[in-house]
């Protein structure tokens, strides 16, 4: 009798758990047709599971996942890389993502884009979710959540995401069921293709600031990133991507602080704003008026950076390794096909508007 009751209770609990799990799978946002950047962080695990490692890892905000094309680094220089960027990725998130990645692999170079140094506090729950929900559970994810939560957020809602997304039932669409078990691929080794063209026309600069001091917490995390790389013999390279528009303005005062830091610790820092050698044409190489590069700008930026990686850091081409070449030639082919497909869509959309 007791045994029967136990079996019955366990069965009820299992059914309940299955229902909750199913509800979670349906209700979590899929980032399929909107805010696709929400899938970037999780896509890295495809590389991990396939056993792929990289010579270069990029971390940072949208300025990395819209500026560097791993497929092009491979095509032109035989360099393997991954861009672990996400929308408004804050520096503590970059640190914990890097910490996590270095458990799986040891690259020769880590590249960090410094724009996020301007943020000293957690910013926005929706952006937090786009970076943190995609991480697998680990000490790094726990650290990233604790460092990122805004006042309104709870740790429990990251464990039981149903607590956060239960109200999405009224906005469910076919995508929520279609991508319940596996998300759509949105990027190519972390690079998000954008083929649209919207010229940069505004000459507006950033507003005067009350305080130009970069937050000390940003330097604390930069220290941690630097120490983590040093422990593993990895070269940490700081960059500022070439984009510079009024809302995401990079101030000279900030630049000086990064230059001073780089000099103090013997790091290389490259500010690509106004760097004419890259060859960016702001009338054709941006899809949103200069805020981000499109694929044409990103390919130029990548080509320029590839030269630096070879010249300054001695990265060697891996094209002679047949196993690696097989994997990466496939990636390159997929990237080219996707780019071509998207360009055709852009052309059709553009001609239908005219």
């Amino acid at each position, binding site marked *: 009798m007791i045994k029967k009751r136990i079996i019955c209770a366990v069965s009820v609990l299992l059914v309940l758990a299955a229902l909750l799990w199913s509800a979670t799978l349906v209700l979590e946002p899929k980032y399929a047709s909107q805010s696709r950047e929400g899938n970037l962080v999780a896509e890295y695990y495809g590389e991990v599971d396939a056993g792929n490692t990289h010579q270069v890892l990029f971390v940072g905000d949208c300025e990395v996942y819209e500026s560097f094309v791993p497929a092009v680094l491979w095509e032109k220089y035989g360099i393997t890389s991954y861009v672990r960027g996400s*929308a408004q990725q804050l520096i503590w998130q970059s640190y914990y993502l890097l910490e996590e990645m270095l458990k799986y692999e040891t690259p020769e170079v880590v590249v960090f884009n410094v724009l996020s140094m301007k943020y000293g506090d957690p910013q926005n729950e929706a952006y937090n979710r786009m970076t943190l929900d995609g991480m697998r559970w680990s000490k790094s994810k726990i650290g990233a959540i604790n460092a990122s939560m805004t006042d309104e957020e709870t740790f429990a809602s990251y464990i039981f995401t149903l607590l956060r997304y239960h109200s999405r039932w009224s906005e469910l669409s076919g995508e929520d069921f279609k991508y319940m078990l596996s998300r759509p691929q949105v990027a190519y080794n972390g690079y998000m293709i954008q083929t649209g063209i919207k010229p940069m026309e505004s000459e507006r600069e950033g507003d*005067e600031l009350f*305080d130009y001091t970069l937050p000390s917490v940003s330097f604390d995390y930069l220290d941690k990133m630097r120490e983590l790389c040093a422990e593993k013999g990895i070269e940490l390279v700081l960059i500022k991507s070439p984009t510079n528009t009024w*809302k995401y303005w990079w101030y000279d005062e900030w630049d000086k602080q990064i230059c001073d830091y780089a000099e103090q610790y013997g790091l290389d820092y490259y500010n690509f704003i106004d760097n004419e050698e890259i060859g960016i044409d702001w009338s054709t190489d941006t899809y949103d*008026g200069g*805020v981000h590069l499109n694929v044409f700008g990103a390919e130029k930026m990548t080509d320029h950076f590839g030269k630096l990686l070879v010249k300054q850091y001695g990265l060697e081409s891996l094209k002679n390794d047949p196993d690696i070449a097989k994997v990466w030639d496939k990636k390159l082919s997929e990237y080219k096909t996707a780019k071509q497909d998207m360009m055709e869509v852009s052309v059709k959309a553009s001609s239908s508007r005219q």
Partner: protein
Amino acid sequence: MKKILIFALVALMSMSLFCACDGPQIDGKLKYSFFTGETEIFPGDEAAVILAALGEPKAYDESPSCAFEGLDKVYTYSGFEIQTYTEGGKDYIYMIVLTNDLVKTPEGISIGASKSAVIEKYGDQYTSVGDNLQYEAENCTLQFIFRDGKVSSIKYTAKV
């Protein structure tokens, strides 16, 4: 009776003076706003009605966010700018920036004012970085940025 009336009047005037030192109070809470013509603008307010009242701006700029729909917009008028952000499909006033001495705050401070004039009008409950002063209200922060000892920029930023 006359003495009582005079006393009451003096008391009332004294109270109003103290209120003035504490800044503009709405429902007992300090809230800063900016007046232009007949239009009063509170940072954080819905933008549509205000923008309609202000008419055609001299210039307009917009910027997308990294991943979400909606734009951050800047409307430039004579002497000031208004920045808006989008939430739930509606635009709200995020920032008001006074850019020249054609306009002034309701408390009477304009570009070019001295630090002592700002403190005289807004009081000494500020935080500062260098010469710059920042006042906190329920609805916004109000910043006075100085260059060469004079106010070079005045910014109202909504608390969002």
